[in-house]
């Protein structure tokens, strides 16, 4: 989950009404914000990826005001239609990044902390909603260096301008090749010879979406007026993103003027709230409560939504930036939050259900008890194992290998087709412990077959100076007899990668080969640096004692 660092005294000021530190820290978890760490005047909280408004202290302050009862109901956005701000879309953008939207934010002031919070929001929106800028991305600019109308168009890769954080002109190709953002996000533009560009009335480059802004419009703590533009391949995602930015900037004290968007499937954004109408009963039923309609309305208002009772139904109005609300069940959650999760008392539902274990689990339990009775310690290893242990050190055939893509760990790259190699690794890690050492493990192994087959195997090993084949055969024989009243034969096998020649057999039950038993080959043991004799077996249980 993403994390944001908050300055507590600043948050107190944003929430208002002399809210103290304790109230704030107590309430944060009840907004779904997990406190990750706490400093003297800072707190780091984890927030849900579906609530990008919580990526800033402005957004969190709105939530706290609601749940603390300081300011309830929906935050009304005030977007005025004046000033003649316009962006015209050239149809050439339709092939590469068809949509643009935006807003003019005026008369605000941004201190260092506010800039930090807004950058955090921008990063969050880019990664989450924007799917690493592919779906949609934001540019925030100093309005005072820009002449209107703007043009959203395309240009060739030779186009030159001075990018953000630079003093010299570069071409688009150079930016994509030489800058970090260029290398990280250039692939979004593919091989297209034309790339998106925003220019102003004087022909100055403002932005090269979704990669980088121009240095011309750099935002500093001196900036009072902003242009926010969002471009993307999904119109709704772009407007979702813009709605979060506008809400947060309103929290930061800005006033808004409309940015008209015209041309080629684009339109001026509107921030009209949605409404959902629902009955009180189902909400109570799901939560296990019996609260009145007016109480329910008050719960929703605490979550910064608007609600009224209308003909025994509730009409809930949802601001544009709460696009995480899909339908009725999301409203139920809002009611629960407004009611206070701590006020929901756990209940005990009567039930006539009789619980049962799965038979495979039960049988494996019995086997474990028998194996410990025979003196074997249970081991647990990963089913996603390493090529080295499974194949290289055991000299086994790796032609049917099943591997995963891009594992972050070399120890976990291959699905095991056998348990024994893991047990040898366990012995190898314990060579300094007293002998005899005996391990067993039961679990899933994998093999190829439309597209993959999972079976349950049992394997065990004994390591000691004195151990020998018959000792292990005696264990196998007794396990099958006591456990499942089954007899097995051990048939001479000419060779097997794991075992010594002449000391290995195939385990056969009712004419069917189900595994191997033998003394481990000295070369294999040497690979594992084991200096005692080792005997072991592995047997397939699926098809034998369960399906």
């Amino acid at each position: 989950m993403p994390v944001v660092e908050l300055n507590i005294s600043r948050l107190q000021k944003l929430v208002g009404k002399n809210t103290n530190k304790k109230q704030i820290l107590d309430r944060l978890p009840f907004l779904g914000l997990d406190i990750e760490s706490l400093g003297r005047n800072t707190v780091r909280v984890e927030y849900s990826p579906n609530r990008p408004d919580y990526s800033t202290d402005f957004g969190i302050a709105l939530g706290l005001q609601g749940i603390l009862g300081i300011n309830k109901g929906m935050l009304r956005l005030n977007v005025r239609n004046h000033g003649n701000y316009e962006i015209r879309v050239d149809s050439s953008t339709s092939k590469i990044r068809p949509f643009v939207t935006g807003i003019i934010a005026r008369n605000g002031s941004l201190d260092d902390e506010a800039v930090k919070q807004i950058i955090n929001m921008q990063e969050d929106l880019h990664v989450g909603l924007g799917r690493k800028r592919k779906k949609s991305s934001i540019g925030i600019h100093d309005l005072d260096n820009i002449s209107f109308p703007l043009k959203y168009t395309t240009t060739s890769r030779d186009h030159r301008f001075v990018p953000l954080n630079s003093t010299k002109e570069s071409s688009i190709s150079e930016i994509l090749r030489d800058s970090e953002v260029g290398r990280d996000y250039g692939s979004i533009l593919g091989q297209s010879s034309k790339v998106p560009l925003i220019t102003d009335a004087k022909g100055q480059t403002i932005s090269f979406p979704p990669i980088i802004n121009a240095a011309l419009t750099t935002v500093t703590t001196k900036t009072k007026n902003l242009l926010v533009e969002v471009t993307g391949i999904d119109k709704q995602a772009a407007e979702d993103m813009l709605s979060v930015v506008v809400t947060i900037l309103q929290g930061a004290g800005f006033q808004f003027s409309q940015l008209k968007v015209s041309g080629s499937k684009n339109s001026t954004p509107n921030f009209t709230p949605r409404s959902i109408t629902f009955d009180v009963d189902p909400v109570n039923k799901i939560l296990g409560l019996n609260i009145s309609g007016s109480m329910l309305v008050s719960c929703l208002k605490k979550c910064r939504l608007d609600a009224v009772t209308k003909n025994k139904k509730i009409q809930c109005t949802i601001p544009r930036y709460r696009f995480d609300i899909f339908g009725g069940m999301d409203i139920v959650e809002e009611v629960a939050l407004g009611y206070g999760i701590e006020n929901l008392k756990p209940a005990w539902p009567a039930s006539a259900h009789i619980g049962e274990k799965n038979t495979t689990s039960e049988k494996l339990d019995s086997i474990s008890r028998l194996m410990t009775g025979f003196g074997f310690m249970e081991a647990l290893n990963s089913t996603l194992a390493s090529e080295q242990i499974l194949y290289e050190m055991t000299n086994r055939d790796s032609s049917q290998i099943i591997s995963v893509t891009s594992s972050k760990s070399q120890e976990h790259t291959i699905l095991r087709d056998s348990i024994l190699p893991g047990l040898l690794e366990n012995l190898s890690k314990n060579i300094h412990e007293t002998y005899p050492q005996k391990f067993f493990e039961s679990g899933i192994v994998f093999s190829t077959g439309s597209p993959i087959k999972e079976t349950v195997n049992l394997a065990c090993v004994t390591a000691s100076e004195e151990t020998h084949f018959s000792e292990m055969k005696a264990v196998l024989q007794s396990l099958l007899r006591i456990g499942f009243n089954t007899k097995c034969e051990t048939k001479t096998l000419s060779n097997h990668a794991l075992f010594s020649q002449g000391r290995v057999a195939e385990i056969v039950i009712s004419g069917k080969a189900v595994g191997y038993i033998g003394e481990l080959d000295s070369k294999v043991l040497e690979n594992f640096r084991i200096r005692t004799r080792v005997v072991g077996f592995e047997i397939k249980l699926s098809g034998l004692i369960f399906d």
Partner: protein
Amino acid sequence: MSHVLHDIEKQIINVLQSDPDLTEEKISQETKLSMDQIRRGVEWLRQKKLADVSESINISLSLGKNGLEALKNGLPERRLVTLVRDGPKTFDEIRRSLHGFDFNAAISNAKKNDWINIEKTDTGSKISLKDPDAIVPHDSELIISRLSERTIISTEFDNTPLAEPLKSLMERPDFIIADEEKTKTVSLSETGKKIDLEKLDSGAIDVEADVPHVHAARIHPLKDTINEIRDTFVHLGFTEITGNLSQSSFWNFDALFTPQDHPARELQDTFYLKGLNAKQLATPTQIKNVSSAHKKGWRYYWDIQEAKKMVLRTHTTCVTIKHLADKKPDEARIFSLGRVFRNEKLSFKHLAEFNQVEGIVVGKHITLRDLMGIQKEFYRKIGLTKVKFWPTFFPYTEPSLQSMVYNEKLGKWIELFGMGIFRPEVTKPLGITKPVLAWGGGIERIAMLKFGLDDVREFYNNNLSWLRTATKCQ
């Protein structure tokens, strides 16, 4: 005062009465008793104040797993130097012969010994030999070869030029095993000297004497916790269902309304099985309905090829949702427990493969408060009594809560199981009409609390010294 003496004690006294101040080894030679018997006998005599023991500690050194490997094939840095003796090589070329930790160890030690140069070139970093003549057998190699001949007491190295290289070699994992050996010099106390062995009663044995530890074979401690949790679910009326560890993306993600461009579906979070696609995905209706739920909810082109990709399940929810979609029960309490996988960097708190349990309650009249109650009862049964709930977010449940449990040992609240009601966007397309309440989470976390571990990897190390001593009844 009459003494009850074991035969071992009598033999030790006998030797010491004629020859005071002997080491335990010497007593063992004289009496022909094993060292183990001597140690026990001496300890008994000491407790009875019949003998005095003065101890000195020796650290004896022998080769560990990697030490033996180095003896055979050379230290990683030696192998590295051999590889670049005939000319510089790139990192990739070297990785062919030196894997994993060996590679890192080789580079860092060869650099420390000033054997190699690393140049950055356009085609990647290259390693070359710094001074071909300077490479004589390194002190650490001398140490390894001497240790291969015999076990050496560490003090033999004190104040020699090998002391420093020994220290750094011992810091490398599994190269050298250092066993502390106590040498004990035993002498009789005044009372002991006076004992007349001839006159002692020989029928009695010393029932108060210490005895050695024996090791019990046992169920793995993590398995104990898993079994306890499984039993608890059964007691609460839940029936176990199982499913494959390998699953199609359809059941692991799509059926749970996780959009195909969701970050959780990326290679860096999920293990995809190389080149494997599901043959049988689901019923045509299930596929059609899930596809349209995605198109409606997330507004994108839903690609069936993406849904066919096989993954190692990232949660047990894929098993429960398939069960619900196929059986469509009106009432049910079921649970699924087993291994799940995340493409994580391993650390003290993260594993790539771990155990998860998930319980599902289906019912017409079931409420969120009921689910909280079931969970509270579950925690009470496994010995966790202070529980509270906080809101949280899960992609496929709404509302979603997480439970916090107070841990007395740590003195703080710990996040345990999550819970929630399956979103209608998940249930409706699969024809599930009754509310589905789900709860569950990772099992290792609970086992760590029970066994007081602070590194989750310990469960899968199969370290006998821990398995033989971890307290069974937690």
